C-alpha cells in the first residue's frame, strides 16, 4: 500500500518536471522558491535535488533563477565538503556570468579547501620565511653582544672571586650565587618590569642585553675561576721566579693556558644562550621565538614552529662546529 503510493509519487514527479520544462519560464522561479523554502526547513537533500533539476537557460534567456539555484547548491555542496561538484556549480555560473563575484569567491574557497593541508603549510613557510629570518637577525645580535660582554665581565668577576681581598671575593660570590640561583626569566622580568618601579625605565633591547649579560657573566665567571684554579700552581711560581708580578703572571702565563680548557664549557654556555634568547620574547622583544609565536597564532600552522626550530638548529650547529675547530686550533702546543 505504502510502496504503491511511493512508486506512484516517483512516477508523477518527473512527469511534473517534464511538464514544467515544456511550460513557461516562471516555473524556474517556482522551483527556486520551493528549494529555498526546503533549505529554510532544513531539508537540504530535497532542496539540492530541486536545484540540480533547474536546467540552464538557452542563450539570451533570463539566467537569474538558474544562477541562484546553482549558487545555493554550490554552497550546500561546499558545506558537505563535496568540493568537486561544488566547483562544477560555480563554473556553471561563471560560464553564464563570468564576473559573478559570489561564484568567484566560492570557487576560490573551494580550491583552497581542495589543496592538501601540507601544501598550504609549505606555502605559508615560504611566505613567512623572510619575517622569521629577520627576527633571527635580532636573536643573533642578542647572542653576539652577550658573547662579547659576558666573557669580559666574567673574567673580572672570576679574578675578584679568587682575590685575597675577602670583601671583593664575598661580593662576587654573592653576585654569582644570585644570578645562577634564580631563573633568567625572573631576572629579565625584574629588570624590565621591576626597575621602572624604582625609577629606571629601560628599552626592551637594553633590558634584554643587561639581563642576558649579567646572567651569562655569572656562569662564565664560575667556569673561568675553575679553569684558572686548574692550572698547576708551579706555573705561577715559575712566573714569579723570573720576576713577574701576580698580574703579569696572570695575563701572560695563567690566563692564556685556560683558553683551550675554556672552549668546551664556554661553547656549551653560548649554545644554551642561543636558546635562552627566546626568553626575552616575554619582555616585548621581537626575536625569532616571538615572531614564530605571532605567525603561529595567526595561521595555526605548526610548520612555522618547525621552521623556527630549524633556524635555531642551524645556529646551534654552526656554533658547535666552530667551537670544536677553535678548540683544536688552541691545542697546538699539546702533545697528543
Amino acid at each position: 500500500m505504502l510502496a504503491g503510493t511511493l512508486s506512484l509519487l516517483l512516477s508523477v514527479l518527473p512527469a511534473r518536471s517534464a511538464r514544467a520544462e515544456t511550460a513557461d519560464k516562471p516555473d524556474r522561479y517556482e522551483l527556486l522558491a520551493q528549494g529555498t523554502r526546503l533549505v529554510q526547513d532544513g531539508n537540504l537533500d530535497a532542496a539540492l535535488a530541486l536545484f540540480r533539476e533547474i536546467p540552464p537557460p538557452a542563450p539570451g534567456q533570463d539566467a537569474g533563477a538558474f544562477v541562484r539555484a546553482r549558487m545555493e547548491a554550490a554552497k550546500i555542496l561546499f558545506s558537505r565538503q563535496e568540493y568537486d561538484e561544488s566547483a562544477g556549480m560555480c563554473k556553471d555560473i561563471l560560464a553564464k556570468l563570468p564576473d559573478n563575484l559570489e561564484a568567484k569567491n566560492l570557487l576560490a574557497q573551494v580550491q583552497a579547501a581542495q589543496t592538501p593541508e601540507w601544501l598550504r603549510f609549505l606555502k605559508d613557510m615560504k611566505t613567512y620565511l623572510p619575517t622569521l629570518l629577520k627576527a633571527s637577525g635580532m636573536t643573533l645580535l642578542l647572542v653576539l653582544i652577550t658573547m662579547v660582554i659576558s666573557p669580559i665581565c666574567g673574567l673580572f668577576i672570576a679574578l675578584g672571586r679568587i682575590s685575597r681581598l675577602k670583601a671583593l671575593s664575598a661580593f662576587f660570590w654573592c653576585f654569582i650565587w644570585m644570578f645562577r640561583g634564580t631563573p633568567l626569566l625572573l631576572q629579565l622580568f625584574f629588570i624590565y618590569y621591576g626597575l621602572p618601579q624604582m625609577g629606571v625605565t629601560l628599552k626592551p633591547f637594553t633590558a634584554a642585553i643587561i639581563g642576558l649579560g649579567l646572567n651569562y657573566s655569572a656562569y662564565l665567571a664560575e667556569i673561568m675561576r675553575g679553569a684558572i684554579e686548574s692550572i698547576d700552581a708551579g706555573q705561577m711560581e715559575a712566573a714569579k721566579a723570573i720576576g713577574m708580578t701576580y698580574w703579569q703572571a696572570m695575563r701572560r702565563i695563567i690566563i692564556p693556558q685556560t683558553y683551550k680548557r675554556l672552549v668546551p664549557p664556554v661553547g656549551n654556555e653560548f649554545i644554551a644562550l642561543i636558546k635562552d634568547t627566546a626568553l626575552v620574547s616575554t619582555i616585548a622583544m621581537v626575536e625569532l621565538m616571538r615572531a614564530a609565536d605571532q605567525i603561529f597564532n595567526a595561521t595555526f600552522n605548526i610548520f612555522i614552529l618547525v621552521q623556527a626550530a630549524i633556524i635555531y638548529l642551524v645556529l646551534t650547529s654552526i656554533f658547535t662546529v666552530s667551537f670544536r675547530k677553535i678548540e683544536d686550533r688552541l691545542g697546538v702546543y699539546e702533545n697528543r
Partner: protein
Amino acid sequence: MIELQGVVKHFGSLKAVDDVDLNIEKGERIVIIGPSGSGKTTLLRMINFLEKMDDGKILLDGTEVGYRRDKKGRLVLEKPEIISALRSEIGMVFQHFHLFPHMTALQNVMEGPITVKRESREKAREVALDLLGKVGLMDKKDAFPAFLSGGQKQRVAIARALAMRPRLMLFDEPTSALDPELVGEVFSTIKNLASEGMTMVIVTHQMGFAREMADRVIFMDNGKFIFEGQPGDLFSSHMENPRVKTFLKKVL
C-alpha cells in the same frame, strides 16, 4: 753577596727551617744535601721570597731586603713590585721544570726579558737564541715543551732563568725528575755554568754535584745545618756524624 741570618719557617707546629745562617759569597757554589723533609726546598724558596720567612733577616750586599715589620713587630713581605724586582735577580730551577706549556722553547726564554725587563723583542730573541745554543737546544727552539724530553725541558728552564741575567742561581733537585740516562746532559749544563763563575746553590741527592763542583757542602736535617764543609770532608772517613753517615750510605 746574599746572607741569611737566623732564618725560621714554621708550618703549623712543624719547624721546617730552624734558625739557619747562610752566607753565599759571589762565585760560590754551594750544594745542600739531606734527607727528605729536612727543609731544603723551603730554604731555597725563602732565598727567592717564594716562601715568607717567620723570623730572621735576608741581606743583599749587606742591606736587609724584602721584609719590614708591622705594628705588632711581625715580619711582612715588602710590596709585590719590590719582591718581584728582587726575584728577577735570582734565578730558580725547579724539580718539575714548570716550563710555560703554551710557549715554544724560545718564547719561554724570551718571556722574562720582554715582560719583566721590558727589553725589545729583537734583543730578547738574540739573548734567548744565544742561551739556547749554550744549553745545546738550538734545534729545539720552536718546539713546545710537550714535545721535549725531560732533560731538554730542564735545559730550557735553565736558559729561561739565565735570560734574566741573575746574580744567583738556585737549583732545587734539578735532576730528580729525570730518567737516569738524561741526568748527564743537565748535569753537564750546570757544570758549564759553574765553570763560568755563576754563583749557585744546588739542592740535590746527586753526590756527583757535591764532589765535582761544590765549594761548600751543607747537610741539612730537621731544618738545621748539621754539617757544613768542603766536599772532601763530607766523603772522608773521618766523618763522625751518624745521621750524615747513614744518609751517605743510602745515597752512594
